């Protein structure tokens, strides 16, 4: 046994590192969805936004050589998708869930169409911050290579949590999400607030997509997202529409997603695909545990079409 082998300690360490890496896109998508749902609308299209963000971020980073500009453009493309969803839902007699599913297919389809030429080339990766310099163990050092987007996500979660309580915009978003008649009576345009919330939420989801293609796993492919955008919707329900809880839930999902690779890294390959399914199982169990037919969801914005 050499001194850098840490045996089964590698599993929790790899899961910790994996949780941080894998959770970042969950965090961004769920914060975007949290903002959208707080305003009273559900955007299931964030899966499509995520995939398109991944493709466009990768493509822009490859073409310009700047990964951060890629992240920004991925956000902008997310805005575009959010704006389409927001605009269509403003029309009368439109169901936001149906539009969300259409947008999800549209986003992934469009990403595959434009993304074909970018599957082969290698785009520059996002740099990471090394926080493990104090340790002599390479495993610890590699686990503490953390992407700045993770910290930006935490800051965003804290900011949103604060802003929902302490700013005019926060209160207006919560008001339109909970009681559209109240917002109308006070002279706010519910449609406009929801349009903006969906657009900004789309930006976050696009950034989450760029993280996928530009950092971890770190390449553009068509199977990149594997449903993370949809899981983020479940995650928001689990987090009870609280941005801070979204962070915790994203870490939990991240850790579940890292389980398979972590076990593989210490040589357990049996049941690899089963462990890789952990996030999906977690989604299922969380929805069963936290949703009951006998009571309504606590903390749910009153205007959401699923709670009405």
């Amino acid at each position, binding site marked *: 046994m050499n001194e850098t082998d840490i045996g089964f300690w590698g599993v929790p360490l790899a899961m910790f590192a994996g949780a941080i890496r894998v959770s970042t896109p969950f965090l961004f998508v769920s914060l975007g969805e949290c903002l959208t749902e707080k305003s009273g609308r559900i955007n299931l299209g964030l899966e499509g936004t995520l995939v398109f963000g991944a493709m466009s971020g990768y493509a822009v980073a490859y073409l310009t050589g700047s990964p951060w500009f890629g992240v920004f453009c991925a956000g902008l493309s997310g805005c575009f998708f959010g704006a389409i969803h927001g605009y269509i839902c403003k029309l009368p007699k439109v169901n936001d869930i149906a539009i969300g599913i259409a947008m999800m297919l549209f986003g992934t389809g469009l990403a595959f169409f434009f993304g074909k030429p970018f599957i082969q080339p290698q785009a520059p990766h996002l740099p990471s911050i090394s926080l493990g310099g104090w340790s002599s163990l390479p495993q610890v050092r590699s686990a503490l290579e953390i992407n700045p987007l993770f910290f930006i996500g935490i800051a965003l979660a804290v900011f949103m949590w604060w802003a929902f309580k302490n700013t005019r915009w926060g209160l207006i978003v919560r008001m339109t999400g909970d009681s559209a*008649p109240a917002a109308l009576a006070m*002279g706010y345009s519910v449609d406009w607030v929801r349009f903006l919330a969906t657009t900004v939420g789309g930006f976050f989801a696009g950034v989450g997509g760029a993280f996928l293609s530009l950092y971890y796993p770190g390449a553009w492919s068509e199977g990149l997202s594997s449903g993370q955008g949809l899981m983020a919707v479940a995650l928001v329900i689990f987090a009870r529409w609280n941005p801070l809880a979204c962070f915790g839930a994203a870490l939990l999902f991240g850790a579940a997603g890292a389980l398979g690779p972590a076990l593989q890294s210490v040589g357990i390959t049996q049941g690899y695909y089963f462990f890789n399914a952990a996030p999906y199982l977690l989604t299922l169990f969380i929805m069963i545990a936290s949703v009951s037919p006998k009571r309504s969801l606590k903390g749910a914005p009153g205007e959401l079409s699923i709670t009405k």
Partner: protein
Amino acid sequence: MSAVPAPHPRRAVELQTIGMTKIFGSLIALEDVSIHVRPGTLHALLGENGAGKSTLVKCIMGFYQPTRGEVLVDGKEAVIASPRDAHAHGIGMVYQHFTLVPSLTAAENLVISRAHPPAVIDWKKEIAGLEEFLSRMPFKVPLTVPVSGLSAGEKQKLEILKQLYLDQRLLILDEPTSVLTPGEADEVLGLLRGMTEAGDLTILMISHKFREVTAYADDVTVLRRGRMVGGGRVGELSVDDMSHMMIGDTKIRERAARKEFSGEPVVLELAGIFSDDDTGLPAVKGVNLKIHAGEIVGIAGVSGNGQSTLIEVLSGQREMSDGRLFIHGKPFEPTRQKMAEFKVFGLPEEPLKNAAVRRMSVAENIAFRSFDKPPIAGRFGFMSPKPMRQKARELIAQYRVKTPSPEEPIENLSGGNVQRAILARELSGEVEVLVVANPCFGLDFASVSEIRSQIMDQRNRGAAVLLVSEDLDEILELSDRVAVMSGGAIHYVVPIAEADRNSIGKAMAGH
């Protein structure tokens, strides 16, 4: 927006409408209505449902643009294109349906209701300011609890406080006491009247309760079918005058007389019913009640004290967490088979929502109790539409349901006719147990009278009737015994002969 900085302190506002007319398509909702609300008075607006009261105040508030006519505020013509313009003139409205945001606290609701809330809110400063404001106000509400946790009375008070916080000096109140206990209603109206007498406030109050109008209003205007049919100083009009103005010469069906019974057996027994509401919290906490044949037991109470949960349990819409139901001493579960076997029928509140399928036809809705039995159900599970239509036609005629045809979707009928169609379905057979909730909510006088008579008829034929109503007058008119529900339990039951408003009101408030 024509907002002008308000000179402090603002004084009571004077309001006049001249020749207000509002036409929707072919319907004349309001025709040439001119009212004068003197500053510093409480002015009551009386009228039946559909008389044009809401249309009038919506025109004043800028929700609707009147087809003709104008609004004068303090004697000057005012252009009110939106509720914001009305607010700028110092006119605010308290709606029957709350406009508070449930998940926001009282303080958040008040701050966000301001025309220009700060971009970043300094809560320390705001809370101090709100507390100072509340210290000048006649009633208080807790500031830091989410509104969803407040009682209906507290919400109503907060709605009024919100308008005062916005410095509105003419308040339009839409049936402000419908969710209050009689005691709370007297408190709120008394305090508001104090403010009008001091010249700080003018109030225009929509109401249909003569008791409140005679006790608190200075002036009254009566509307009928969109026209102003009378008005004047309240002191100069009798209740008879006002009710005659309201209903005109409409024929009101005579109330069925109460048949005397004695020593009838217990039919429906509720034994220790417990049930949880949508949030998983206990809403009904140990209700015990026995109802005899030929008896109406009225459950009074302010809405939100567990009555609707209890009704849902009895009609099979919600599971109980504990307790038993018995009919004639035999255990009863509210399933379709058992309901048919024990002849249990119900008139839930808001029938269009709770007892009908909106887009299905009147005939189909009427067949909901019988479509799976002969003659409608044929062999091999096929349904024959002919007997169904036949039966529907008979019942539509018998219960005088006004509908273009039996095939009309039920949602196109007026509220009174939906209720009549449901009555036809529920009451046309033999009834042993009848569960009724707010049967007359939002109906006109003629329908109210007819529906109450039908309920009394069932009682006289020996049915055990459980009546839940938020309208205390309805309870007092129909019941043989009055039970008061408060906080999910029934602590006070009294025979009608010994019932008085005061002790019922106290029991409603939980004392």
